[in-house]
């Protein structure tokens, strides 16, 4: 199946001076929905120059593009109060309710705007473009976006990418940002390396938006390039990160790229079995197979202790699901699942024919960079959007895309406002230019013995064991913290790269190491179980003591400074009134 691409994917470079410096008003790092919406909003608010940089291809390699593009839009006809309540409850009262409220209230306008630009949603056989969000009672999402002959995430990415191009946004692909620049405590640009040539590029700007997504520790979902880069950029600048103890789990096939579909599939009658061919999820969660994905993953962990698996199986033979999926497959979707179906079909394999082996899978860290309502971080001039920003700890299908659009728009508009009223960087100079440029290429200069791919393998061995990921306990977490710190100190001396490719992987390895340390530190601090965060030694949700956020920031000398902040429920629309 061939897809048309809107705009050339070789929209490679904007205006680069001879010394590899790019002067711009705003620099946006990352070109998924978060980054593209930031760029559009900044240009729409009157900024002249906005540079969008991506370590892969602009828009084309993002999670946003690979996604199905299912999105929750709360239109005038939808019950806002009901949806808002359900979302806050799903997020276990740790969401930024002010943001969730604004996001939901304005999401209908986002839909209308995209429709004006040519996006449309296909109707399902029952005449509506929406479907229930799996694991919820009321929330609905628009499921089949279409734009210029493309379906899926590619449609919602290309519609905004075209708008950014039309407004004169400058695209820099294959440039990985490795460090931020600052001037008198304010962010004023960034340094990056060209992944093809290893050259260093300097972006001088008056504001920066981080929209680099989350961290998957090189794991599933074809998001091996989501490596926590933005977390490290913000951390190094002294910004706080929140909810880092939440690592989203889901379930999927160990053999094929079939994952995170079971929550929707369960609504169509698909079922989980254990190794004895018995249903088992109802033993651990009252919603059974229709429970939230992380509960299914945890049920698999519990069932393992009772000898019921692995392996587990997922039965997709239900007729309704088969028909529904065939409907989706007829569309030109950009997500990888569609391509996988086609390849399976070519090889004569029918995934709807018999139950498939199914396992728990860890996906992405749910936490992110703490910002205010305007998506500005603690550091003047530094904004965050998309899943790099902390908004809620519990990802739901359809929410990640709308939150990326909302936070992107918010960050872009506020960045424009900030930049219009701010000083001229040329007058003050950059405090850390030579340091940032030398750190960008440091692994190339190192003659050490460890290669980035080895480090990534070691990080995975530390974070993936199930007593660290699915069912944590303090003893295991302390061991893992020790291991990651050892790795960090070895890496400082030994991590070496001998090509531009390895240079970018070395940075990814360093970013993942920090993300792992933040994840482990916050996981140890939260002495209760809540959502994806499950502590074997504190199995209950403790609303008395833990309706709190854990904020982490750079404490200097290699230490993480921690802060526990009560969620201001008294100021929020929805207070917790339980026990």
């Amino acid at each position, binding site marked *: *199946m*061939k*897809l048309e*691409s809107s705009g050339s*994917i*070789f929209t490679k470079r904007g205006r680069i001076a001879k010394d590899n410096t790019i002067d711009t008003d705003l620099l946006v790092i990352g070109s998924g929905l978060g980054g593209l919406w930031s760029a559009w909003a900044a240009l729409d608010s009157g900024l002249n120059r906005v540079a969008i940089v991506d370590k*892969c*291809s602009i828009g*084309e*390699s993002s999670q946003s593009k*690979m996604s199905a593009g299912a999105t929750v839009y709360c239109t005038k006809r939808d019950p806002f109060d009901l949806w808002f309540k359900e979302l806050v409850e799903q997020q276990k009262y740790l969401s930024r309710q002010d943001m969730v409220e604004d996001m939901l209230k304005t999401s209908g306008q986002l839909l209308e705007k995209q429709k004006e630009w040519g996006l449309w949603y296909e109707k399902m056989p029952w005449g509506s473009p929406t479907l229930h969000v799996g694991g919820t009672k009321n929330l609905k999402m628009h499921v089949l976006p279409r734009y210029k002959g493309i379906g899926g995430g590619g449609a919602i990415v290309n519609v905004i990418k075209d708008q950014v191009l039309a407004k004169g946004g400058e695209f820099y*692909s*294959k440039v990985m940002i490795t460090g931020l620049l600052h001037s008198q405590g304010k962010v004023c640009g960034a340094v990056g390396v060209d*992944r093809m040539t290893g050259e260093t590029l300097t972006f001088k700007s008056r504001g920066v938006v981080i929209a680099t997504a989350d961290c998957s*520790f*090189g*794991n*599933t979902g*074809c*998001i*091996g*390039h989501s490596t926590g880069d933005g977390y490290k950029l913000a951390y190094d600048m002294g910004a706080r990160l929140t909810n880092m103890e939440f690592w989203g*789990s889901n379930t999927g096939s*160990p*053999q*094929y*790229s079939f994952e995170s579909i079971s929550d929707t599939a369960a609504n169509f009658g698909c079922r989980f079995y254990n190794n004895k061919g018995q249903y088992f999820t109802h033993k651990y969660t009252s919603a059974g197979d229709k429970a939230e994905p992380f509960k299914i993953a945890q049920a698999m*962990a519990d069932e*393992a202790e009772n000898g019921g698996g*692995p392996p587990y199986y997922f039965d997709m033979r239900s007729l309704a699901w088969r028909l529904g999926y065939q409907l989706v497959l007829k569309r030109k979707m*950009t997500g*990888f699942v569609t*391509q*996988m179906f086609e*390849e*399976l079909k070519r*090889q004569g*394999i029918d995934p709807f024919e018999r139950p498939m082996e199914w*396992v*728990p*899978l*860890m996906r992405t860290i749910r936490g992110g960079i703490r910002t205010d309502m305007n998506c500005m971080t603690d550091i003047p001039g530094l904004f965050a959007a998309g899943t790099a920003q902390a908004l809620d700890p519990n990802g739901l299908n359809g929410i990640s895309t709308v939150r990326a659009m909302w936070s992107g728009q918010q960050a872009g508009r506020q960045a424009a406002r900030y930049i219009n009223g701010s000083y001229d960087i040329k007058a003050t100079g950059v405090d850390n230019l030579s340091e940032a440029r030398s750190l960008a290429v440091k692994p190339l200069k190192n003659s050490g013995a460890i290669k980035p*791919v080895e480090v990534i393998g070691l990080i*995975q*061995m*530390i974070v*993936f*064991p*199930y*007593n*660290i*990921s*699915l069912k944590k306990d303090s*003893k*295991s977490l302390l*061991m*893992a913290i020790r291991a990651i710190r050892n790795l960090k100190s070895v890496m400082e001396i030994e991590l070496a790269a001998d090509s531009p*490719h390895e240079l*970018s*992987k070395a940075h990814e390895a360093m970013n993942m190491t920090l993300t792992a340390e933040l994840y482990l530190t916050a996981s140890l601090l939260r002495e209760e179980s809540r959502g994806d965060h499950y502590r074997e030694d504190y199995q209950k949700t403790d609303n008395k003591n833990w309706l709190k956020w854990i904020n982490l920031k750079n404490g200097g000398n290699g230490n993480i400074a921690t802060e526990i902040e009560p969620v201001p429920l008294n100021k929020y629309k929805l207070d917790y009134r339980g026990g």
Partner: protein
Amino acid sequence: MKVIQLIDTALCKGCGSCVEVCPMDILRIDTISGLAKIAFLQECQTCYQCMVVCPTDAVSVCPRRKKIPMPFNYKMEDDENG
């Protein structure tokens, strides 16, 4: 381990689209032949983006993915206490 399998040099026109989109930075244009090549096979994540974008159907990706880290593969044990 199955990942990107093949770039058919008879079909490849060297347009570079696959190199451009690959999120894992696996592909390169060969400086001598001017055609695409698989430079870092081990890190491929079976995401099909190269295959989708190729205008000449030169790229094949196998649907079976490489072994992925899973929680059940191992448990963290205290190495000091055995």
